[in-house]
Structure formats: C-alpha cells, structure tokens
C-alpha cells in the first residue's frame, strides 16, 4: 500500500530503520488498530552492500572474508561454508586436525551467538540485566577467538584447505575453563528469564508458526526446528566430521516464541556436548592443506550447505574456470526466516512484535547482504 491508499483512522507506523528493537536497520511498516497489528511489510536494503556482486570481482580466497560480514555472529560458519564449497571444487579435503578445529570454532561461535541472542532478547523484552550476564561468557569465547584467530568478530580464520593458524597453546585449557563456567552458569539463564512468569506470559502461545508454514516460508535453523521441522544440516548433510560426533537435533513442535527460546537454550547444551567430545581429541598433524597461490575452480557449479547459528547457509558458486567466481549466491538463513515475521504479526500486539523479532533472531546484514 502506498501513502495515498491510507484510509482515515488507519494507523500506520514505521518501526525502523532507526529503532531499538530492529537490531540493525530493518524497516517494518505496521498497520495498527490500537495495539493490534493488522498487517506489516518489511523494507530491506538499508545495508545492502552487494556482497554477491563484490565477490564476482575477487579471487576465490579473497571473497571469503566478505562472508564474515554477512552474519557477523556466525562468521566462522560462513567462512566454513565458502571454504567447503571451494574445497569441493578443488577436490581436496581439509586435514583431520583442521576439520576438528573448524567444528570446535563453529560450535563456539554458535554458543557465542546464542548468548548474544539471549541477552538481546532480554533487552527487547525490557530486562536489561540478562544482556550483561550473557556477555560474561560470550566475552570468554571471544577472547579464545582473539587468541587463536587474531580477531574477535570477523575472524577470517577458516580458509580453503584448512584453517589459517594452528590453535593457540592455551586454547584447550581456556575452552575447558569456559565449558566448566558455562555449565555452572546456565542455570542463571533459567533463573533470570526462562522460569520468569513475565517471560513465560510474553512468549508462550505467541508467534505461532506451524510446520507447514515453516516449510513453505523456507525457514531453517532454530526457527524451523521449533516448529518441528527437521532441518539441521549437520545431521542431514554432515560436513567436516559432524557425522562422527554425538549430538542431538533439538526439536520442539509448539512453534511459538517460547519453543524457539527453549530450543536455543537446549542447542547451547548440545554445542557444549560437541565441544566436550572434541576438545580432548584434537588429532595431531597438519592444520592446513597448502593450496596454490591463485585458486581456480574447474568450470561448473558447487553448492555447499552449512548450519549456522540461525539456520541453513547455502553457498552457490558458479565457476567458468577463471580465477574469479562467475557468480556467487548466498542463501542466507535470515532472509528466509524473515518471511515468517509477516504471518506471525497478523493480529499480534506491538509488544509481541518485539518478542517475535527477538526469537526469530534476525541479523539484518545477513538479510541485506
């Protein structure tokens, strides 16, 4: 609907681009009746950087660093997806040590990402303290990243053929300490928010997404799993030795905000489980298969799916044999998860909008790319 179509007494409100709960620069146009939302329309593109176009001008090794900037909270997984796609084209496989390191890093960043989500959820619902409690352990994870990878957020650590650096000597020790502390502190999450009557009231039965809708709307990751759709790429199309670790795909069939909330908390426990299994069994050996200076993929197309913290990331590389990819397409999880917002918002209240956005866990740069 354009501006001229607005009838009298219809209340149109813009939420975003500069709004505290949109976690970035998403703009939602809401049609309201008092507190109730009649319809909504997302407007994207406020941080569209054309990563797909930029990738066409960069070499295979170089465009990976751009993907860290898409979903900056799962930078490792984004890099991993690209690296795996390129490795697929080059017919090489990362050495076993590198694979374990990749899985460890991916799970650590999943933990960090879910912690940030938890804190931001509290912030969105009006509780400020969870943010700081969540950042306590997240800070430890980021410190581990910083020691090994050299950066905290956009790591560029996973590269075709393995990982850039070997693990820092303190890595194992620090991760063990982190796991210990995290296990001791996870009950605080429950104490502060999960069990809280207000949070339960705000999330239970709100923002229902049925399994059929989730499939049709293309939702993946925790959003779809909370509706009972099995979609964990780590289980369905295992990569980097995920088939060798023992973990569960957490599922919930309620499909409401609380299901998504609960599922992410449960996923954190699974991530801890994976890390615990691997941390003592990091194989010795080389951490990187040395590739040529200029990587050229044989002509053809390569598709690699990876489970990031928010769902399935698909990297689709079309090569024409030159040193730059001909076309790179990122199927980002948040772009599809955003679809779920509109049907959910119909008939909901303004307060629900915030909790829905929080439990969908949208990262706007990942939508806009």
């Amino acid at each position, binding site marked *: 609907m354009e*501006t001229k179509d607005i009838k009298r007494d219809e209340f*149109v409100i*813009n939420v975003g*681009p500069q709004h505290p709960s949109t976690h970035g620069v998403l703009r939602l146009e809401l049609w309201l009746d008092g507190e109730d939302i009649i319809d909504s329309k997302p407007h994207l593109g406020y941080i569209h950087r054309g990563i797909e176009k930029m990738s066409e001008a960069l070499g295979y090794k170089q465009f990976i660093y751009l993907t860290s900037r898409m979903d900056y909270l799962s930078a490792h997984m984004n890099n991993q997806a690209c690296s795996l796609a390129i490795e697929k084209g080059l017919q090489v496989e990362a050495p076993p040590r590198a694979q374990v390191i990749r899985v460890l890093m991916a799970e650590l960043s999943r933990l960090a990402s879910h912690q940030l989500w938890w804190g931001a959820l509290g912030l969105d619902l009006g509780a400020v303290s969870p943010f700081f409690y969540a950042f306590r352990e997240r800070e430890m994870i980021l410190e581990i990243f910083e020691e090994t990878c050299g950066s905290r957020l956009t790591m560029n650590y996973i590269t075709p053929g393995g990982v850039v650096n070997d693990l820092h000597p303190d890595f194992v020790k620090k991760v063990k300490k982190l796991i210990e502390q995290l296990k001791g502190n996870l009950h605080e999450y429950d104490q502060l928010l999960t069990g809280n009557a207000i949070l339960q009231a705000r999330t239970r039965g709100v923002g229902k997404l049925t399994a059929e809708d989730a499939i049709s709307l293309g939702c993946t990751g925790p959003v779809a799993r909370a509706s009972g759709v099995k979609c964990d790429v780590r289980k369905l199309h295992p990569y980097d030795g995920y088939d060798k670790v023992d973990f569960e795909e957490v599922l919930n069939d309620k499909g409401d905000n609380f299901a998504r909330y609960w599922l992410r908390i449960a996923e954190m426990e699974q991530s801890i489980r994976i890390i615990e299994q691997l941390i003592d069994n990091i194989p010795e050996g080389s951490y990187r298969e040395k590739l040529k200076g200029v990587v050229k993929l044989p002509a053809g197309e390569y598709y690699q799916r990876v489970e990031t913290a928010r769902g399935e990331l698909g990297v689709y590389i079309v090569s024409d044999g030159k040193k730059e990819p001909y076309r790179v397409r990122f199927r980002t999880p948040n772009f599809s998860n955003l679809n779920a917002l509109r049907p959910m918002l119909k008939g909901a209240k303004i307060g629900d909008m915030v909790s829905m956005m929080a439990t969908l866990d949208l990262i706007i740069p990942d939508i806009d790319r």
Partner: protein
Amino acid sequence: MGSVSILLLMFCGFAFAALAIGLGNKLSLKRYNPEKGEAYECGMETQGTTWVQFHVGYYLFALVFLLFDVEIAFLYPWAVVFKEIGMVAFIEIVFFVLVLFLGLLYAHKKKALSWM
C-alpha cells in the same frame, strides 16, 4: 501551615519548571534546522495523520474504572468510622462489596476486561 501549602507547592512546581525550562532556553545553543521540527518516526516521514479516532480498548477500561472508583470513594468514609459502628457496618459493607464484586464478575463475563 494550612491550606496555603497546596497553593504554595503548586506555585513551587510551576516556578521550578518555569525556571528550569527558561534557564535551559537561555543557556542552550539554538541552531534552527527544519528537520529538527519533524516528528520522530524512526527516520521516516509520518504516513497519514496521527490524530485519529483511537481504538476503543483503552477507553473501556476508563469507563469500568469510573464505576469502581466511585465505589471506592464511598469506602473511604466507611473505613474511617468502621470501628466505631462495629458489626452493622461490617455486614453492610459485605453486601456493598459483594455487589461490587458481582459487578466485576459481570464485567469479566462480558469480556469487558480482556483486551480487544
């Protein structure tokens, strides 16, 4: 100090606000820019008018409130003299509050108390 104190504090509040806002106006640096006069709506221009006929949900509570508030105003004088009158006052107020409570139950049954 007597009833003057109400006037005094009204004046105090007014004077304080006037002083503070006046001082703020005096001290602050003013740079006119038409964008400063726009209504904040997350950086977008407002669509449609803001002053619309508003949703009835908010007013419904005001109406129910009005009823109950009058009843509660009656309860205050009762509460003061209650102990002196004793049992009679208690039985009377039980009936009174019962009617109030039934009214609340009625409003609840009519769904006047759930948000629309």
